[in-house]
């Protein structure tokens, strides 16, 4: 249709285009804005989830902000975020770069690597829990001493296990992103580098990595924001334990809201999570610079 590209269609497009956004906007308002406002309002109330909702000013916020459990939950959330980012990013970049090669077997490999992402977090947690059981798990079954540790019963081990499983689950996804990113890098750059005598390592650090800058920011944003919402895996795996060693903020919110019947404080935590997510997303976008949204494709 020439109207979409020709200059004569320009007027029509201006008239119709904004209206095309209406369905999406309605969904966004209905499923994001309204609940968000609802949660904000709830955080200024006292509600046990069953009876009436009573406005109570700042009581819930005060309860949450003075709770010694909050700094701990924030710390654990941050730690899971930081460590899983630090583990996932290099692994994903290396794997993604490797998979971007053109040999046929790599297509098969990338398919295999992708499998963990297809499993549900709850199923993964149940499976790992069975494998790591100190008495009936893999270690006990094979009779290997080093494998039959109390993986989920010691605070730091449990934390390590959570980070490991999260990485195992999501490295495939980010590898896929990096694979796409690497494949977009113009071959001419590598050819020029080869003429200049650069080796593969040099090519990786001087061309691949800088060219992946925006991919790294996109992937990191997804990773970091996503890690704020880790809930299902940890809930099934450790329930926040041992003690409160893996009690992240999202889990803390669930426990307050649905186990302790404290909907007000749970909503306050929900608001804190939203604000943290927004702040981090904005920060990462800033990091990417103003042109982060522009296409990096040659000639586009």
């Amino acid at each position, binding site marked *: 249709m020439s109207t979409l590209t020709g200059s004569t269609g320009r007027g029509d497009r201006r008239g119709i285009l904004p209206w095309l956004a209406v369905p999406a906007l309605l969904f966004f308002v209905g*499923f*994001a804005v*309204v*609940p*968000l406002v*609802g*949660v904000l309002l*709830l955080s200024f109330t006292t*509600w*046990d*989830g*069953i*009876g*009436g*909702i009573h406005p109570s000013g700042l009581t819930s916020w005060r309860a949450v902000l003075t709770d010694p459990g909050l700094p701990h939950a924030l710390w654990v959330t941050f730690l899971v975020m930081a460590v899983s980012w630090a583990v996932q990013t290099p692994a994903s970049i290396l794997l993604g770069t490797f998979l971007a090669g053109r040999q046929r077997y790599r297509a098969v490999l990338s398919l295999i690597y992708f499998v963990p992402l297809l499993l549900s*977090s*709850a199923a993964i947690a149940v499976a790992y*829990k*069975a494998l790591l*059981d*100190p*008495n*009936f798990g893999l270690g006990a079954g094979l009779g290997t001493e080093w494998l039959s540790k*109390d993986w*989920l*019963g010691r605070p730091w081990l449990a934390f390590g296990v959570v980070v490991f499983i999260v990485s195992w689950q*999501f490295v495939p996804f980010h590898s896929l992103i990096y694979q796409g990113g690497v494949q977009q890098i113009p071959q001419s750059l590598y050819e020029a580098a080869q003429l200049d005598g650069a080796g593969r390592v040099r090519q990786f650090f001087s061309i691949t990595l800088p060219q992946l800058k925006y991919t790294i920011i996109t992937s990191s944003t*997804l990773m970091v*924001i*996503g890690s*704020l*919402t880790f*809930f*299902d895996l940890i*809930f099934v795996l*450790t*329930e926040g*334990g*041992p*003690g*409160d060693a893996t009690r992240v903020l*999202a889990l803390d*919110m*669930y*426990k*307050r*809201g*649905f*186990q*302790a*019947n*404290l*909907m007000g404080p*749970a*909503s306050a935590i*929900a*608001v804190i*999570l*939203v604000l943290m*997510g927004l702040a981090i997303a904005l920060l990462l976008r800033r990091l990417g610079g103003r042109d982060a949204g522009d296409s990096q494709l040659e000639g586009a």
Partner: protein
Amino acid sequence: MEIHLSRRTLLGLAAGVPASAALAACGSSGPGKGADGGTATYWHLSGQPQEGVRTGAVERFNEANPKGQIEVTTFENDAYKTKIKTAIGAGKAPTVIWGWGGGTLRSYVEAGQVDDLTPWFDQNPEIKNRLFPSSFGAATVDGKIYAMPFESVEPIVLFYNKRVFDDVGVEPPETWDDIMALVPRFNAEGIAPFSLGGQSRWTNMMWLEFLFDRIGGPEVFQAVFDGEKDAWSHPAAIEALTKVQDLIKADGFIKGFSSITADSNADQALLYTGKAAMMLHGSWSYGIQQAEGGDFVSGGGLGFMNFPPVEGGKGDPGNSVGNPAQYLSISSKASAEQKKIAKDFFATGVLTDEEVKEWIDTGAVPIAKGSEKLLAESESAEFLQFVYGIASNAKTFGQSWDQALSPTAAETLLDNIARLFQLSISPQQFTDNLNEVIGK
């Protein structure tokens, strides 16, 4: 779990979950629309063998009452706890609400969500008189009965593996000191003294329930339940908490207990496979070990006893704790017709002779009086008569703490118990933390 999380939908998680409950609560103030006029709805727990008995009772009732049908939906235990709460909060409760009584029932009552059944029990004294009197405590809020006790009584029992005791050449403990003396004997043989599914938290709680009672008597927890200020700081409480930590420090529990869950029955497996010598658990564990333990129960490997006394303790060694019964309430939002069906079901469909027999076949003691003869004839006669004896002879049969307290206080309790068993807080910190939520 009913919550599906995508990793990237931050708003969906942070905002959607509590808010959707809130919206649902605002949106429908009308009566539960789960069924049309002639049908009452009833939610209960899945999982055999209990599920079969529950649905069997409903099927018989529906057959006998073609005009007033009951429609059943079943849920897995933990999912049910969240689901029923949300449904009641949203005004979408089923007509008949299955529950544990105690603090949760109280929160329903305070929100005006369940009907007062006192007048109905007064009009039908024969129904009330058929049931264990001790089962009504957890159904009563401020002197009024809001639930019908039914199903079975489930005291917490000290199970032990007779074969392991024979191998090591020791006798079952008669006092707390015996327990502490047994610990090194079993550890020396590479057998864990006690199995424990510590990640589930309520499993650890059973130890405190007994120690509080044996050392200080039932008054100690009663004071907490009554909302007395600083009730957790009772000297008997500190002593009980210290004794539990002593047992943990002496390696009384299996290595890695805090990563074992009770839901998967791994704790039971430790006992019947002989990896652990003893286990404190609900009487329902008997049926599980019978079903999963091979010839362990039928071959006479399983021993059971009430929790032993503590030297110098004030509590009666016959006292017990656990679930006095399960409970059925009627949603106040149900239609008059639905309520009538529910009451008919309570009167003629619950704990019928047939159901009583079925409960006994599953290794449980139904709370209907006069089943002694059936218990004696049962395959598991020895165990059932033991449970019946505990239930009917206990001077005090305390309800499990997490059920007796409000959900808010219970969550703090379970959290602090997990920390206490991790040795990351002292008995003193435990009591301080819990004193803060008394009466909440």
